[in-house]
């Protein structure tokens, strides 16, 4: 396990091509370290932009932070739920 970067995009209402480029830079950096990059809780518009730009093939997308953390790291999920009071359904 080489770690992972998870982006909580729940508060992001729009992302431009320049913003996507920053995500790509992070993805390249992480891939070189054999680490994963994921994004969670995308608003519908942001998810559409990711798909049109084919960034859904670059970044793992999850419906929620809980779903993402469950896939990436159980300890991180536990810590996240303890911090936010969310529960894994």
């Amino acid at each position, binding site marked *: 396990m080489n770690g992972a970067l998870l982006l909580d995009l729940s508060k992001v209402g*729009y992302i431009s091509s320049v913003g996507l480029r920053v995500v*790509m830079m992070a993805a390249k950096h992480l891939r070189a370290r054999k680490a994963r990059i994921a994004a969670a809780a995308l608003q519908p518009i942001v998810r*559409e932009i990711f798909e049109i730009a084919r*960034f859904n093939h670059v970044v793992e997308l999850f419906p929620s932070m809980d779903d993402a953390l469950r896939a990436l790291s159980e300890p991180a999920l536990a810590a996240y739920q303890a911090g936010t009071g969310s529960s894994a359904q």
Partner: protein
Amino acid sequence: MKRVRLWGTRGSLPVALTAAGVRAKLRSALRGASGRTFDSDEAVERYLDGLDFAAAGTYGGHTSCVEIETGGPDYVLCDLGSGARPFSQAAVMRHGPDHPQTYHVFLSHLHWDHIMGLPFFVPAYIPGNTIRFYGGHAELEAALRRQQEKPSFPVEMTIMPATLDFVRLQPGTVHEVAGMSVTVMKQRHSGDSYGYRFSAGGRTVVYTTDSEHRLVNPAETARFVELFRDADLVIFDAMYSLADSISVKADWGHSSNIVGVDLCHHANVKHLCLFHHEPVFDDATIDRVLKETRRYEEISRENAAPLHVSAAYDGMEIDW
């Protein structure tokens, strides 16, 4: 400036619709026609008009060649990909061999897919015609002559009886050609490429293919926004997805539909035409890219004026 006609719209390599591709279109159309009756050719045409372009037509497979109809006597072309062959046949059919014409040909660059139509360019074989080649590369004339030398082709350019002129253009300069004002801009591509802004009679067309946009240099982005400023039509290299163009295909010298929309919005362009299609894309894939691009235009518009988005196809005509 009356019309733009696209004779070749495919990137990198000519492609052709296969028998399997035709059969898939027929299958789809026949399935959609199940239970209908067609009592006239008009009824058939109405049915076909209702189908997706990928089902009833094809984007085609000729490489880059675009004609700008100025309303004057001279012809103006951008690039001499394989689409230059059907263009040249149509031009000669229109005039016959006894009415000499002048052809102004602006070359984006000298890669093979943009010059491969020249050996089959019929007007070059007709005495009295003038073919004037414009481009930014020092090797302009040498590259065109080289592709027809043995053993690559049996007819060298010295055999062509038309008058052949070569005009080297400097980036950032403006020229008057065939009644149009032509602005030249250097672009990011292996060995460089050049984009052209054509203006006449209150209309502006920008031809910008084989041009990579890295999105890291605001000054470079601003230069393109100025080239595109208030254009009626921008013919734009949208060969790859944004993700591919800045990752696995970075430095391959091409751009994306997303960047095309963003630049055109910034520049208040009226019509973006997606061009230089990836040769592995079939018609359904290009249809899908077009629909997605129109959706992205809608999402990203904010306060910009609506931008019409189309996907170029061989034989497409854009009129004013």
